[in-house]
């Protein structure tokens, strides 16, 4: 396996100085890529060719490959200066934001071009729940900011506490989203009811998937947080992503729930 050493010695000492050519390798990008290939094939088997068995088979290949790839990559790269980077995260967030922009523009375009809105089949959306969700998510943005602040001051115990509180709040938010979804679906408002339900579930779902990614980043950092050797750069970067997820929620809640 190619655990051997990506940038084991990060500084000046590179293969070059060892007298023989040594080329860095990592098997994980390859594994993840082909895992994604099987994922795409599984989708086609399930939804295009209606062959459930082949789909399960492909999923059985894809999911372990992707999970092993991410785990292997994380353990290989963490703490070697090749983890998350603040500058790179900024560019990545630009791309992420554009996904939301296209969903919102698609929604606006559709809504403003239609004579009758909301389309038939739309039900009254709850008003209180999204407010509570907003409070929880904004609160978690504040707690992670506070945690970072404590880390900067060197208060590791306080940092650990508020880091955990943030994770819990993120999880609570996610739980509330799931409750809300199932509640609406029970009332017969599903993703295929009409164009508004399509927009509602895809935009809230897209945002929810970003909450999941944000939580995954926090969980990836959890072992080092508990050990007490978390990198401040990692924290800043993970925090930036979380704030982004929070800011996007304002658009979701204002455009989808209250407009």
């Amino acid at each position: 396996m190619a655990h051997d050493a990506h940038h084991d010695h990060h500084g000046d000492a590179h293969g070059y100085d060892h007298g023989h050519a040594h080329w860095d390798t990592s098997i994980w990008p390859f594994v993840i890529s082909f895992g994604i290939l099987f994922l795409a094939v599984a989708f086609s088997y399930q939804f295009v060719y209606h062959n459930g068995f082949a789909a399960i088979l492909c999923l059985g290949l894809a999911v372990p490959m992707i999970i092993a790839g991410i785990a292997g990559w994380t353990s290989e790269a963490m703490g070697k200066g090749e983890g998350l980077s603040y500058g790179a995260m900024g560019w990545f967030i630009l791309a992420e934001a554009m996904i939301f922009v296209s969903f919102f523009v698609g929604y606006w375009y559709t809504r403003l071009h239609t004579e009758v809105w909301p389309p038939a089949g739309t039900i009254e959306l709850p008003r209180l729940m999204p407010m509570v969700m907003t409070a929880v998510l904004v609160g978690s943005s504040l707690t992670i900011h506070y945690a970072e602040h404590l880390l900067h001051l060197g208060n590791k115990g306080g940092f650990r506490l508020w880091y955990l509180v943030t994770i819990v709040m993120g999880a609570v938010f996610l739980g509330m989203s799931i409750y809300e979804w199932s509640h609406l679906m029970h009332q017969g408002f599903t993703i295929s009811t009409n164009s508004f339900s399509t927009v509602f579930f895809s935009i809230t779902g897209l945002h929810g998937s970003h909450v999941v990614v944000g939580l995954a980043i926090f969980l990836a950092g959890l072992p080092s947080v508990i050990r007490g050797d978390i990198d401040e750069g990692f924290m800043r970067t993970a925090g930036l992503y979380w704030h982004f997820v929070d800011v996007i929620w304002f658009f979701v809640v204002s455009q989808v729930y209250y407009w």
Partner: protein
Amino acid sequence: MNLKEWIFTTDHKRVGVLYLIGSIAAFGIAGIMALLMRAELSTLGPTITSNPATYNVWLYTHGAVMILGFQIPALTGFFANYCIPLMIGAKDVAFPRVNALSVWLFYVGVILACLTFFLPDPPDVMWTGYPPYSIMTTGNTAMYSFTVLILGFASIIGGVNFLTTVAYMRAPGLTLNKLNIFVWCTLAAFVLQLIFVPVLGTAVTLISMDKYLGTHFFDPAAGGDVLTYQNLFWFYSHPAVYVIFLPFIGVVYEIITAHSKNMVFNYKMVVYGGVGGIVALSGVVWVHHLYVSGMADWLRIGQMITTLMISIPVGLMMIGLIGTLYKGSIAFTTPMLYALGVVFLFLIGGLTGVPLALPSLTIGVSDTYYVVGHFHYVMAVAGTFAIFGGVYHWFPKVTGKMYNEFWGKLGFWLTFIGVNITFWIMMDVGVKGMPRRYYDYAHFPQFESAHQWMTVGAAILGVGFALAVLNWIMGAINGKKALDNPWGSPSLEWSTVSPPPHGNWPTPPSVSEDWHPYGFKKD
């Protein structure tokens, strides 16, 4: 040679070479599709297939693979990977593993695109995938969506990687005004990718969701809107033209400066006016693809103006090229011939594009061969010439060996002649009314001889491209040993040995105050 060190490599140069091999393979496949289409059209009625659906599959594969599998990966994959770290004096990119992920995602995308030939109900939605057809067809639209999504994701992570690399890893002394034009152009292309690829990704995801998961984004019966897709799609796909144009013109700048041993004419005007102007305007011209789709007039007129305006920065970049030739000591090497070929083809393609900015004219020639001819001149062939010229230009650096000049030049001239036969005639029959995308032209028998000439031209240009690829393969196997800096260029990538070792330089380079990548010593 250690195969494991190639397949699992994270080194930017090897990742680059993997990109090159994959994209040239994709070029071969997509090129064969084009030749099949030309063969089919060489006579009235069925020629080599009697099934129009087969023709649609060729059309889909040709378009999707040429753009997403060949041009974008060759330019932002091979050239960016190989040249950018070397040009800025870095030993690798900021995230080598992410780089490896993007090249393998690219391969996965090309594999998915090529599954088209083996699948029952292959995708038949062209490279545009317009609903409602893409939702109603029995073809496998999911494959199309996944291909685009995976290649798009590969470009996004590549973009993040290179923007971070250039921001933080430049050699000491290498200020922004000393970046190679190619680096500027490619960075701009990556910024465009980051902004616009997610929009395309969203659009193609939505058609598959509509088709397979029961959503109603584009279903008017449930309150959806079909035109949303066309807007989202072209909001990406017009800037995609600049994602291809910018790096390829950057490659041409590198070739023309090195082979005429001259400073870039008006460097700052090219960078800030040309590259900057294109980035600024690229997001507000997409409606010119939708003039006949039923747009509000204020939108059509507004975007007609922005479309005409964008020819100003593009013009600045062309002036920069021609000015660089002035008083240069021009050597007509193979890469230089390709670069000059780009200038010529781009001139024709650009001038035939200006009328297409005008809604009044476009309504007449929309969906005719005129558009196809214009597009192939301005982007398809000009871009491909730049890629071929660039591969020749950096061939000594990549392989440490020399290609054969005679076969290189012969390949160039064959391609150049073939291209002008095929696509000039294409524009001509287009103006006379030949519609595009037709499997047969029973209603237009008067164009049969023109179609035959186009097929002859396509065969000639096919031979020319094949000669070039063979020339590289032969050169890489048993070419003469090349000098480290055969073109005498001060640009940093030529300051290391050929091929560069892992880490690129024994000690990281730094540059002095009076160094410039185009500061050629005058003989």
